[in-house]
């Protein structure tokens, strides 16, 4: 271990899944030997999005739903940084839904850890984009009337090269999923199921624990058709693990000026070089 990540006292409720996800993140970063100056956590607004406040690392805390665009900017300007987006289901799939979709299309080399508790925790219990139909909330008294997002299926149809699902109740497996996602070259989605102990009395810790199962060792994660079937499996049984993983050319690798040489942030700009080019036309 090169570095031990320092943690700060959070304002999450006792028993919140965020504690386990933070522990897993710390273990993944330490396990990969990534030091705080080599990585950045980008987040939006929400309970999950408070993550940069509670772990000592480079952090950028922006607006609700808007974590992906600054993460893209950070990665393109400094390709040496490990860029991790930590945000919730509301942040990533609701207000940030458009960025989620187009971020996948762009395939920037970032890891996206979505804390999915199927509820809005920060604003106290309204339905999120992943709340099930019929689920009664503090706002939807008669139950949710609209279909939930299927994030993994959506990511697959958008062409994501790394699609996984984790569970905050199993740290060891979550750590290995996070490591795989961080090391993956391209956009990597890990949808992490977690209980919200105060605002979601339906999808509780035991609700998830009783339903999750691990994809078998012989599961072929390069088979997109099978991955799609697993991605849509969200009911009595919920598969956990890497559903889909293939190599894809990243956005940065499509451009020689980004791919080759120093990160853009470390390059010296010399306007006199432009003069040489201009002279050719004179």
């Amino acid at each position, binding site marked *: 271990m090169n570095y031990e990540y320092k943690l700060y006292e959070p304002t999450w409720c006792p028993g919140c899944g965020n504690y386990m996800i933070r522990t897993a993140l710390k273990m993944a970063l330490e396990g990969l030997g990534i030091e705080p100056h080599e990585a950045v956590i980008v987040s939006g*607004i929400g309970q999950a999005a408070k993550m940069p406040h509670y772990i000592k690392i480079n952090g950028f*805390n*922006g*607006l*609700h*739903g808007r974590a992906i665009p600054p993460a893209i900017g950070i990665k393109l300007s400094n390709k040496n940084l490990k860029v991790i987006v930590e945000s919730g289901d509301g942040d990533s799939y*609701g*207000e940030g*839904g458009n960025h989620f979709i187009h971020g996948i299309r762009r395939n920037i080399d970032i890891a996206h850890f979505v804390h999915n508790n199927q509820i*809005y925790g*920060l*604003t*106290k219990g*309204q*339905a999120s*984009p992943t709340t099930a139909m019929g689920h009664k909330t*503090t*706002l*939807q*008294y*008669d139950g949710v009337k609209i279909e939930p997002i299927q994030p993994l299926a959506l990511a697959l149809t958008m062409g994501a090269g790394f699609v996984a699902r984790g569970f905050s109740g199993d740290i060891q497996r979550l750590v290995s999923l996070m490591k795989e996602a961080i090391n993956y070259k391209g956009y990597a989605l890990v949808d992490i199921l977690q209980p919200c102990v105060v605002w979601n009395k339906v999808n509780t810790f035991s609700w998830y624990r009783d339903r999750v199962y691990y994809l078998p060792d012989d599961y072929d994660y390069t088979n997109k058709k099978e991955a799609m079937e697993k991605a849509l499996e969200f009911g009595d049984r919920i598969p956990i693990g890497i559903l889909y993983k293939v190599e894809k050319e990243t956005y940065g690798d499509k451009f020689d000026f980004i791919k080759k040489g120093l990160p853009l942030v470390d390059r010296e700009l010399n306007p006199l070089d432009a003069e040489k080019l201009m002279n050719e036309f004179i």
Partner: protein
Amino acid sequence: MAIRERLSGNEAVAYAMKQINPDVVAAFPITPSTEIPQYFSAYVANGEVNTEFIPVESEHSAMSACIGAQAAGGRAMTATSANGLALMWEMLYIASGARLPIVMACVNRALSGPINIHNDHSDSMGARDSGWIQLYSESSQEAYDNMLMAHRIAEHPDVLLPVMVCQDGFITSHAIENIELLEDEKVKEFVGEYKPAHYLLNKENPIAIGPLDHFTHYFEHKRQQAEAMRNAKKVILEVADEFYKLTGRKYGYFEEYKTDDAEVCIVVLNSTAGTAKFVVDKMREEGKKVGLVKPRVFRPFPAPEIAGALARFKAVAVMDKADSFNAAGGPLFTEITSAVLAHGATGPKFINYIYGLGGRDVKADDIEFIYNKLLEIAAPGKVDSIYNYIGVRE
């Protein structure tokens, strides 16, 4: 007989919305206005209103849904704060430009970044030129009253502009105060039915809303919009007069507090006016001639009236709970000083204090400090600093 109650600002606004019983409410949760749609959704669930409530996925969608509903001839309402209002920005202009009299409760909160959930006026001040009428409220009573008057102003055929009713996040929205409510029937009668002259899906008169408007007509439409804002000045007073007859509560463009013989005056919006009144009372007991002007209507801006009211003081401090970052004072200060200049009031000396950003507490001592500064200027002294900040570490 009025109903005596104890309600927070958010409860008062939600209650007003229940009594108004609009056709559509579309909203997205954001602190500190979250409670308004939350209370309202309970009214929907209990069958106490006939409203179609749409829990949308963003504030942009909330305003868009209100625009659609209002364009189709319905009465639409929403509530938001801070970045929720900021995310509505481009739609605010669609609402006012299409002349759709939507009513919104804006629970004032500081804009990011960095993120802050507490009160200042950077959100609604940022939207001050979006073509919305803006009413400010010192207390939950005023927030309630302004909500009841809002539709009458907005839907008047000479106006047809959206209205934003502002109150201070947490300070007013979450503090429980004594309040007098009107009976449902009286509200129903006062607010009345919404009968738009033009709306979508009218088979007698199909119309298009928002199509391409080039240089041949755009300017005329904007000129009409400007005229509507001027007309709103008259309508705001007419509605206030009718409301006074109904409730005994008097509203104008601004409230003057102990200004009759005052030499110096503070101008401040919303809940801080309450703190300032406490200071005025205290300093009056000490024989100091201090007064207060609290604007209620910021859009349309009552320029000649406020310039006339301030002309008699020796020194005036305008307190802004938002910074314009223009190196020349906050938004209320620049509006007021330009009004004073344009309307020829040369008497008073003006200073500006930016205060309370991001919910920084403004204390009675701070306001007393400003009054003492004004008394020094009036002594007569000179203005050594026009643009000032109070309550900040520098």
